[in-house]
């Protein structure tokens, strides 16, 4: 104890105020890596530019528009739009502008294709919400100006492609009119707008594209109604389904006259199939319908005669049509066969003939093909070649050409839901290890080069050699555990239901696994992954077992659908087992106990407030029974503003005897008045956080005891009016209340009100303090506050020497019934930026000082020393306080550019920051994820326990050699001198 405290003192004195995280430009990429993604592609448009590099422009579900290199799949440029700015459509205008329609069709933007610079932006309003369509006709001109046609919010616009000016607009104000298609045949200047009105009326408007004049309006009544989407089979014919989904309606409106034909599906296919849906496609003459099991392709012959061309039970994906010549359209079709996919390219009017038929081996872990985009090129022999871009179930993007995968992008990593870490295997004889250092000579040569670098003697080639040597260092990307604990596996769960293991050394994917339990099935309609937990972390008894993680998912968006558990081995990436639960999963509580095989006990709370224990083994049950009365948890009901505490009661009293199921009881509840407070944030301490010492030595050798409890909960509430955006409320009607609540007793330990403040609140809880970020409406600036909570019941043990010698009195009684004697200290500071995420560094033993990691609105991660958020800061600290390291109080927190952890990079779309301790006490690993991924190592108090990366061993060797040489020389000299003395 004494030694430890001594160590602590040394740390106090050794830390200095200069920015701790600082990097030289040539150190970029040594300990950090950065990966850029775009997310699941929704729409892709190929640039048809002849000259220059081939590009494809894509829009994604992460609201990214990006231009990709068609040869390698790299990003030329990329823009992330706002969270509510969902992209509805993209296209390329005039061959050099990317046009995007977003925000439900209300924002139209144009971007320069080569460099991604925004050219113009216009806002499109309309009378009501509707589907939106973006058409970029190639030859529609208006005063030498190319025109875009946009239908959005119940209004048709013609917009200049050059500057985004609205040339004309036409409202479709009929109350119940729902637009289904906007058609502009190539070469024509008539726009057809078709849609449904009042559920059973088919409407067709013909509009002059030059001036927006309504030429014709026809409607027809269909008693059977409509369901779902319509498919366009020619420029003047659409196919729809009736409301029962069993009769196909072929509606044509040639020359402004509506004529129709009804064909029951049962006439086309013998066996009854149940209700069908139309798969929208743009291939002329052909459309597809899909029932539960079967996909049927139907050709339209002449005026409304239908003919089935293919019926398949395979999973199938169809591309849009691609015009390859004046009157020919091609499209691509992808079908699955066990481990291969079959790509066929057909002409629209010739189903049976294939232009191209290829089979491509496909990794099963990519799942099904979700989308296909086709593009053609002219081969050297002047025939057509085709390439297709496919989007897989795991959100990855692949380019297929000539039967091969040319490139692939793992864009599933753009939507990470949860992250955990796993250790790598211990280095053993059987484990293959990359060759590290070749021989002593090479090693020495490398270090000589480095020395040359430090002495500024290196030539540019030498510098390049040094840089590549440092970046390639095989040490950091080995597949075994290292001494310092820098090498780990980051296990991430993505929204697509895929698990990835990333190596912390270089960020490469070690394995990936598409969870079978997250596949759509009869029992589980729309499974979604929820969380990742460490299931088995072998270190003592079960050394030979591989570690594994638990993936908790549920079968639907609402919290009362049944849950699914999967257990995945983190070394091999194989699913060990999976369990379909018969109860829902509302809350998962990892318990701090493990059974004999180091499996961690988890308590799952279902919708009926029963607790279920996993793993279901007798060993786990006996451990659990021993701790039965020590298990408490809480739940937050956001809507009602209630926080409840729970404990276990007894075995389930249901009819089925299940010894792993327990009834629960409510212990306490805190009810916030709904008219004045609305909960917006709750934060607790991280479960695995280690606190080194409970005592804090202050300036005058006094000791303060931190109130350290795992059961503290921070809750922030705001006035209901102030829960909206900034600018929607005045300072007088908004306030923010922060609470510290003990989750075992339900006692409110501290409560503070910030008048004139509002959310969003980002908070982090660590040791005995909480830091939260909110908006101060009076100053109109962001503010950060800190609350520290100290235990007063041991205040008389103040002597620091008693503490150092381990003689202080620790036996003060703790009881639920007495109010804990605590005092809190708090302070507030201004902070410049909005935040997206906040985290705190965590180290192996909790000795190293803490840093806050702030994910700013600019998608950067800023590290800020916790000492800037110390409630004991004063404007003029005394000499003693200065020695202790207290910084003079300033109005706002400093932003030091060198302390940006992400240096000159952006983690686009930042969502979360995770810190994991390394084995080395000084170092913590930081992983930030959003659309991009970023990983680095941080040493909040500098690397006091290891040599820095740029430590020059060669200089050390040279010094030693020089010292030895000097000893010999001086020895000789002294001998000679002595001899001379004696001769005298």
């Amino acid at each position: 104890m004494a030694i430890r405290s001594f160590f602590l003192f040394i740390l106090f004195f050794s830390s200095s105020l200069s920015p701790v995280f600082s990097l030289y430009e040539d150190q970029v990429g040594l300990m950090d890596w950065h990966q850029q993604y775009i997310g699941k592609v929704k729409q892709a448009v190929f640039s048809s530019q002849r000259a220059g590099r081939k590009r494809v422009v894509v829009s994604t579900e992460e609201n990214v528009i990006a231009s990709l290199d068609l040869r390698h799949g790299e990003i030329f440029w990329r823009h992330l739009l706002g969270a509510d700015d969902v992209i509805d459509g993209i296209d390329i205008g005039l061959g050099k502008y990317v046009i995007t329609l977003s925000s439900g069709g209300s924002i139209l933007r144009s971007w320069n294709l080569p460099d991604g610079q925004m050219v113009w932006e216009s806002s499109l309003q309309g009378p009501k919400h509707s589907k939106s369509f973006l058409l970029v006709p190639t030859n529609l001109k208006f005063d030498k100006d190319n025109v875009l046609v946009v239908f959005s919010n119940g209004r048709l616009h013609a917009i200049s492609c050059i500057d985004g000016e609205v040339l004309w607009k036409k409202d479709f104000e009929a109350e119940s009119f729902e637009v289904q298609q906007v058609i502009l045949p190539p070469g024509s200047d008539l726009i057809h707008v078709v849609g449904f009105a009042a559920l059973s009326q088919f409407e067709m408007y013909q509009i002059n594209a030059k001036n927006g004049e309504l030429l014709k309006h026809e409607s027809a009544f269909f008693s059977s109604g409509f369901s779902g989407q319509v498919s366009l089979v020619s420029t003047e014919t659409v196919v729809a389904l009736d409301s029962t989904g069993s009769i196909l309606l072929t509606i044509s409106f040639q020359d402004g006259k509506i004529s129709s034909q009804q064909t029951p599906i049962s006439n086309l296919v013998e066996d009854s199939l149940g209700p069908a849906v139309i798969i929208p496609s743009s291939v002329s003459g052909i459309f597809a319908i899909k029932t539960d099991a079967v996909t049927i392709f139907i050709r339209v012959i002449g005026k409304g005669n239908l003919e089935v061309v293919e019926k398949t039970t395979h999973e199938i994906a169809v591309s849009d049509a691609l015009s390859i010549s004046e009157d020919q359209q091609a499209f691509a079709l992808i079908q699955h066969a066990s481990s291969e996919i079959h790509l066929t390219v057909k002409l629209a009017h010739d189903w049976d003939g294939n232009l191209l038929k290829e089979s491509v081996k496909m990794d099963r872990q990519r799942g099904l093909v979700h989308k296909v985009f086709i593009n053609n090129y002219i081969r050297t022999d002047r025939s057509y070649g085709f390439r297709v871009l496919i989007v897989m179930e795991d959100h990855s993007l692949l380019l297929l050409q000539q039967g091969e995968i040319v490139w692939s992008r793992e864009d599933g990593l753009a939507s990470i839901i949860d992250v955990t870490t796993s250790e790598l295997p211990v280095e053993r004889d059987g484990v293959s290890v990359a060759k590290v250092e070749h021989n002593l000579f090479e090693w020495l040569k490398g270090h000589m080069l480095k020395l040359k670098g430090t002495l500024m003697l290196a030539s540019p080639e030498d510098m390049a050699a040094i840089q590549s040597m440092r970046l390639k260092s095989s040490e950091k990307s080995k597949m075994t555990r290292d001494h310092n604990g820098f090498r780990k596996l980051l296990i991430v769960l993505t929204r697509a239901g895929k698990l990835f293991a990333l190596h912390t050394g270089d960020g490469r994917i070690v394995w990936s696994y598409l969870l079978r339990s997250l596949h759509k099935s009869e029992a589980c309609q729309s499974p979604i992954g929820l969380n990742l937990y460490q299931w088995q972390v072998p270190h003592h008894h079960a050394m030979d077992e591989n570690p594994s993680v638990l993936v908790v998912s549920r079968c639907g968006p609402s919290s009362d659908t049944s849950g699914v558990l999967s257990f995945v081995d983190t070394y091999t990436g194989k699913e060990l087992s999976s369990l379909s639960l018969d109860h829902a999963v509302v809350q998962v509580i990892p318990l701090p106990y493990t059974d004999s095989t180091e499996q961690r006990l988890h308590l799952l709370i279902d919708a009926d407030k029963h607790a279920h224990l996993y793993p279901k083994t007798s060993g786990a049950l006996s451990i659990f029974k021993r701790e039965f009365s020590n298990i408490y948890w809480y739940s937050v009901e956001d809507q009602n503003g209630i926080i409840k505490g729970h404990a276990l009661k007894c075995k389930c009293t249901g009819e089925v005897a299940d010894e792993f199921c327990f009834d629960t009881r409510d212990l306490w509840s805190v009810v916030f008045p709904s008219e004045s407070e609305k909960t917006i944030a709750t934060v607790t301490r991280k479960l695995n956080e280690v606190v080194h010492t409970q005592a804090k030595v202050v300036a005058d050798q006094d000791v303060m005891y931190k109130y350290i409890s795992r059961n503290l909960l921070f809750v922030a509430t705001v006035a209901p009016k102030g829960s909206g955006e900034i600018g929607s409320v005045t300072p007088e009607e908004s306030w923010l209340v922060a609470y510290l609540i003990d989750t075992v007793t339900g006692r409110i330990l501290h409560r503070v009100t910030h008048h004139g403040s509002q959310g969003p609140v980002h908070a982090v809880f660590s040791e005995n303090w909480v830091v939260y970020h909110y908006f101060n409406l009076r100053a109109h600036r962001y503010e950060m506050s800190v609350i520290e909570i100290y235990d007063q019941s041991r205040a008389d043990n103040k002597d620091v020497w008693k503490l150092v010698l381990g003689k202080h009195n620790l036996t003060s009684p703790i009881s639920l019934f007495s109010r804990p004697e605590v005092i809190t200290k708090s302070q507030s500071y201004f902070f410049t930026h909005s935040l997206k995420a906040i985290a705190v560094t965590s180290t192996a033993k909790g000795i190293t000082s803490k840093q806050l990691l702030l994910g700013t609105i600019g998608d950067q991660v800023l590290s800020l020393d916790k000492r800037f958020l110390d409630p004991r800061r004063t404007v003029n600290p005394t000499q003693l306080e200065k020695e202790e390291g207290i910084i003079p109080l300033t109005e706002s927190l400093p932003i030091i550019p060198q302390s940006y952890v992400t240096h000159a990079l952006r983690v686009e779309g930042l969502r979360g920051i995770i810190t994991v301790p390394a084995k080395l006490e000084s170092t913590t690993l930081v992983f930030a994820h959003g659309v991009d991924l970023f990983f680095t190592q941080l040493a909040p108090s500098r690397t006091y326990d290891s040599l820095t990366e740029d430590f020059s061993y060669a200089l050390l060797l040279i010094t030693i050699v020089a010292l030895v040489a000097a000893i010999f020389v001086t020895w000789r000299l002294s001998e000679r001198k002595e001899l001379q003395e004696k001769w005298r």
Partner: protein
Amino acid sequence: MAPIARLLLLALLSTALTISSGSGDGYTINGRVKIPQGLGTKGFALPGKTSNVKVILNGGQIVTYLRPDGYFLFQNIPAGTHLIEVTAIGYFFSPVRVDVSARNPGKVQAALTENRRGLSELVLEPLRDEQYYEIREPFSIMSVVKSPMGLMVGFMLVVVFLMPKLVENMDPEEMRRAQEEMRNQGVPSLASLLPGGGRN
């Protein structure tokens, strides 16, 4: 001249929109981000590269990008006090508080929140550029001397060259006494190891 004309046009458009929207919650904020040439050229940020500059309203409610001439536009903004942030790698921008009042539409009051300076027009300039990397100091003899190895060498030099001088300057009587004492204690004498130490 062209940007001014466009600005005027936008202003006209915006008032038109305000009227046409009817419900009274559509105002327009338009402004300009100006990154002075020369600032930041020594760093990594590409001067004049405006395509990655984002302008963010109210902490992420609306995100927009700059036009080539640096102008940006927020449309359909309700009356109230708003916050605009500009993010650009390599530059530090102060957030700007913008008051959009219902009484006189089109008139925008703006102030930097960092230094509470009012803006007569909404032209946002970086307060300073941000240097994310430490600058490697050029090689100097002092840095070598200050390094642990340098200190070792320095100490050795002191011992080799200064100690004999000290010993020489000592009174021979005292020296002898000290040596006697050491010999009595059986400690190997430092002086005997040193050149000149064995003289007596």
